């Protein structure tokens, strides 16, 4: 027998699900996800520059919530710009860092949503490193801006991991 809290949880889940009943695809734009570009304390890796950046995602769509498909067409471009902005630009001493975008997708639970971004970087002949960022929290409104915030936080975590990894590399080389 369902407890009253389980019934209310079900009701909340239904209300949240109904908010996603529209089947119109959601197109995330750059305006929804540009905040981390402004983050003052984002780590940087000045001794490397962005070399080849390739998108190897098996699917470009970010996922679905109910019948709503979420897509951010410029995600790959936005991410590349975020990475380039944090690396040494046009410095002759900066080594080229190859970066692959492997995954960007969301998973849903009854009331929570997880967005995951997976990158892989390689400097010269060194072994490649995987950088993963993910953000899990309660999904309240299914709004574009809420989705954009998930993408920002997960991307920021993956970028931070990549930068910190190569900052350490920079220190080791100097």
């Amino acid at each position, binding site marked *: 027998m369902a*407890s*009253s*809290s*389980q019934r*209310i*949880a079900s*009701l*909340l889940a239904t209300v949240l699900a109904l908010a996603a009943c529209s*089947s119109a695809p959601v197109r995330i734009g750059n305006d929804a996800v540009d905040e981390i570009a402004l983050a003052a304390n984002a780590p940087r890796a000045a001794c490397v520059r962005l070399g080849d950046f390739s998108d190897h995602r*098996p*699917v470009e*769509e970010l*996922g*679905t919530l*109910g*019948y709503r*498909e979420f897509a951010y067409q410029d995600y790959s471009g936005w991410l590349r710009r975020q990475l380039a902005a944090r690396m040494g630009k046009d410095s002759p001493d900066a080594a080229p860092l190859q970066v692959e975008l*492997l*995954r960007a*997708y969301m*998973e849903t*639970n*009854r*009331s*929570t949503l*997880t967005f*995951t971004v*997976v990158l*892989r970087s390689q400097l010269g002949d060194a072994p490649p490193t*995987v950088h*993963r960022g*993910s953000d*899990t*929290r*309660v999904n309240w409104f299914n709004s574009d801006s809420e989705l954009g915030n998930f993408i920002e936080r997960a991307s920021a975590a993956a970028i931070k991991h990549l930068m910190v990894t190569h900052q350490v590399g920079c220190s080791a080389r100097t």
Partner: protein
Amino acid sequence: MTPRLPLRLFVLLGMTALLSACASVSQRLPTPIVSDESRASVVLLALNQQELEVDKPDVGNGGGGLIGALIEVAAESYMDKNRQKAIAPIRDALVDFRAEPLLVEAVRSNLPVNLVRPDAEIRILRSAKALEDARVSLEGSNTLLLYYRYAFDAEFRAIYVRMDAHFGDVGLVRDSKGRAKAKYKSTKQKTGKIVEMVYQSQFPLSDPSNSYTPNIARWMKDGGKPISDALSAAIIEANALAGRDLRSPLAFDSNGGKASYIRYGYPTAMKLKAVRIETSGERVLFSSGTLLAWTARHGVQ
């Protein structure tokens, strides 16, 4: 005012019917009889995941009322975060493991050719909308529809592949408002037209702990090789089981004896009293209702 007898009787009958519906285990329907010409030319493969997943933890009862519901949501969020953090190194270790080509290959090599043409198109669908559109377009023809999930249970005790298989006229029809509805809904309507089965292959740890951290450490031996081995084997085993059973339904009765099996999967792992169909080395095939599942011998209680 006291209700009249017929009203009470109707209420009682209604409650009885409702309760018996809740308690029943779904029974297998007959496989539709298909001529060579009406075999399916499309296999729909519904796959809504990009990496190995972990089942969501069962948060239980938050204590009642709105506060309780909010407690449950908060607990679910907290536990889900923990599971996502825990599975990250596993996913990193499997970052180059591609489940999809394996799935497609396993489907192709195990097609039940009595029901599906050997050259059938295998179409991967990643969203509910894409699946709906495909099912509407295929209305009136036989189709094999497979819903896949590959995951760990919430405590990382087992890895499993689950396939929900539907064969027959699984098409959808649109109503006057454009909403898609199943053509056949009730058991009576589906009988002879659609067969629905669940095929599962699960690889539980031989010595699982109640806490997920030591279980993850066991899976991560040799850089996560036990995981990719188990996942590959589960994909092949589940598909082989489906192909075999759809070609010629496995007969099962109680001759194999009933035992307790843990069926891993969403929303929670569950202990089932089920019939053993056969054993093969360390593997045991059991059945419960429309579920057919391979598990390890040490997974039998």
